């Protein structure tokens, strides 16, 4: 078992980049954040963390045999192919308005994200 700290946060720079991307992408695709913004916060932190570690925002809601290889393959880099083709985000970051879990927000503040992820 590796001893890497599982809940280390991303750098502020990557978090801000992914936060900004998430807002822009939601608005551009007419999708909404989860009614529970805690879910949104955790996913954005995960994307930013992968951006720090792998150079690409690999989806944090999948298990990979080899994260470096997956990041290079790009299929699951956010926005992933299923999201771009069919608006399918199993991470629940970008939800279509008909989704039961969709809220009415397309914005989330940096402090809002860290208020959630500081708990983990």
């Amino acid at each position, binding site marked *: *078992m*590796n001893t890497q700290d599982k809940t280390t946060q991303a750098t502020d720079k990557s978090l801000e980049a992914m936060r900004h991307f998430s807002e822009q992408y939601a608005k551009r695709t007419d999708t909404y954040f989860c009614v*529970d913004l805690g879910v949104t916060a*955790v996913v954005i932190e995960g994307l930013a963390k992968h951006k720090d570690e792998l150079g690409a925002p690999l989806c944090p*809601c999948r*298990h990979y045999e080899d994260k470096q290889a997956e990041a290079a393959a790009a299929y699951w880099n956010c926005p992933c192919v299923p999201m771009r083709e069919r608006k399918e985000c199993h*991470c*629940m970051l970008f939800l279509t308005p008909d989704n039961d879990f969709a809220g009415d927000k397309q914005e989330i503040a940096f402090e809002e994200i860290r208020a959630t992820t500081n708990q983990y």
Partner: protein
Amino acid sequence: MSAAAQVTDSTFKQEVLESDVPVLVDFWAPWCGPCRMVAPVVDEIADQYTGQVKVVKVNTDENPSVASQYGIRSIPTLMIFKGGQRVDMVVGAVPKTTLASTLEKHL
């Protein structure tokens, strides 16, 4: 903190495969939003079925062997094991009723 114990690559065989009662395994990862959403549901199931079902969690980042062995891709994935075999699974942040009805089939 949680009603469900964490299981690792090294304890999976003993805690899950060799369990006398059916086991619900929650495969999760730290920065997976839907995993955070389903965690309290899994804890409620653990309380509700105390004695009938063992409920455990596997952090896939820290335990890649068992996650790969069972072909975990999308997370959260919830698997039910009985007599050392995987007998059912549900993927994603499902409602408690869905999880409970899936579980009931194997009790």
